[in-house]
């Protein structure tokens, strides 16, 4: 029966959320809102993920069949060599034509590393920020400020070293 999988998902979500709660409780001080045990919150998402994958795939497939029979000069297009080449604006020089898997600028790596640092910073801010409203007055603000000052010292260093300049030669 098609609907047999529903209780299964419910059971799995129950078990996982229960263990998550236990882990959190034993491992650290749980003061923030934690993932609810309620299956309501996971069942819709599970179904949605399936549908969200199904819709685009079916779009591709439908178009593949529809497009196949709609095109007129099918034989000609299959034999056309130029049609299947990478688009190069028609410029036929050695510098442009060919494979694209070449080396690219180191700047993108630097941006990637900066992103890792600051995205982690933001991720670490979440716990502070969720508890902020429920803490007494300035208590958490001091913690937040201490954390930010440490990080912004690093930010200032990066700024002065020119790591944030796109054009600077590295």
């Amino acid at each position: 029966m098609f609907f047999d999988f529903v209780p299964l998902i419910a059971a799995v979500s129950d078990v996982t959320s229960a263990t998550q709660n236990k882990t959190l409780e034993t491992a650290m001080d749980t003061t923030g809102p934690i993932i609810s045990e309620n299956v309501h919150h996971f069942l819709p998402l599970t179904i949605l993920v399936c549908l969200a994958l199904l819709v685009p795939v079916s779009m591709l497939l439908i178009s593949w069949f529809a497009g196949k029979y709609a095109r007129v000069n099918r034989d000609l297009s299959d034999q056309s060599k130029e049609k299947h080449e990478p688009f190069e604006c028609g410029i036929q020089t050695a510098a442009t034509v060919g494979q694209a898997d070449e080396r690219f600028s180191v700047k993108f790596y630097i941006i990637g590393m900066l992103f890792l640092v600051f995205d982690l910073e933001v991720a670490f801010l979440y716990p502070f920020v969720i508890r902020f409203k429920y803490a007494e007055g300035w208590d958490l603000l001091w913690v937040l400020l201490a954390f930010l000052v440490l990080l912004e010292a690093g930010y200032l260093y990066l700024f002065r070293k020119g790591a944030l300049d796109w054009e600077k030669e590295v």
Partner: protein
Amino acid sequence: MDTSTHQPVQQSVAERLDPHTATTPLGDWVRELCDAPDGGNLLSMTINVIIIIIAICAFSSLTAMVLVWMERKLAGRFQRRLGPTRTGPFGLLQTAADGLKLFLKEGFRPNASDPFTYYLAPLLPLTGAFMVLAVIPFGPSMWIADPELGLIFISAIAGLGVLALLIGSWGSNNKYSLMGGLRAGAQAISYEVSLILCFLLIVLASGETNLLNIVEGQQGNFWNWWIIKLPGAGFIAFIFFIITSTAELNRTPFDTTEAESELTGGFHTEYSGIAFSMFFLAEYVHMFIAAAIGATLFLGGYNAPFEFLPDGWWWLMAKSYAIIFLYIWFRWTFPRLRIDQLMALEWKFLLPLSLINLVFAGILIAMGWIL
């Protein structure tokens, strides 16, 4: 620390407004059709969920079509043209006709490209878009899922979009595509930091990551919306949100990713037919999502601006479309930024100012200076 006094109070909101326990005529019919062993509770929930999902997905696809029409119409007006007029009344069916045309195009792939990544890329943005739609509360009982960590869910899924651009540009094996993809990657990850800092400000003020609770916390008159309720900080954060979300959407003035004049289309240079239109569709769905998130966080979501007016999805639509109008206005007003200006804007201006704004909001809340 005593945990009992710190629990959020709005925990019951979700249960009060849960749409999945309500029944629909269609759900009743399906329930009669297949006799469920567990008394029909989970089954009815499943059916209701599927109905809601299909409704919202269909709605969002329709929205994307309307948005394309709206953009073309507005672009015409900005440039003293009429925009589409022929197909249907006011050219409303123009997008549908375009979509049908793209559907019937040949499924075509350049020889040099990598088939798996080439076809995987167009799938991801739509998948991500539908998943983010799930947690947006459209109305008091109109939403698919209500996870406690809704905002974190959004920031996690939002990464799928940039992944798609990177995969697609790499899989196309074209230099223009690759350049566009790399730029898209660098730009998206840079602006994501500021975008999440804007989210954090709302989390700081409301103490919630659940979107429904955030909306419910802004009930009442319009000065209860976070954009006004946090004096100064809310408005600055809203402006930053508009800027960073424009960049995340790769829209002008931040569209170095596509940059027709330099890269002939950027990451989708090699895409045609349905694959291209899926990127295109996802772009507009994302635009709607960004506007809806902005409206939810800063403008009170589905809440009416005055207490005596009824709440409902039409308010969210009105607010979202107002923000979308801003996006379109930007696109036809500002020239494109160079990539170094783009990076400088984020790393030297938005990031530090967002952090300062966050601390400012923290001080406001610690001192109790909120409206």
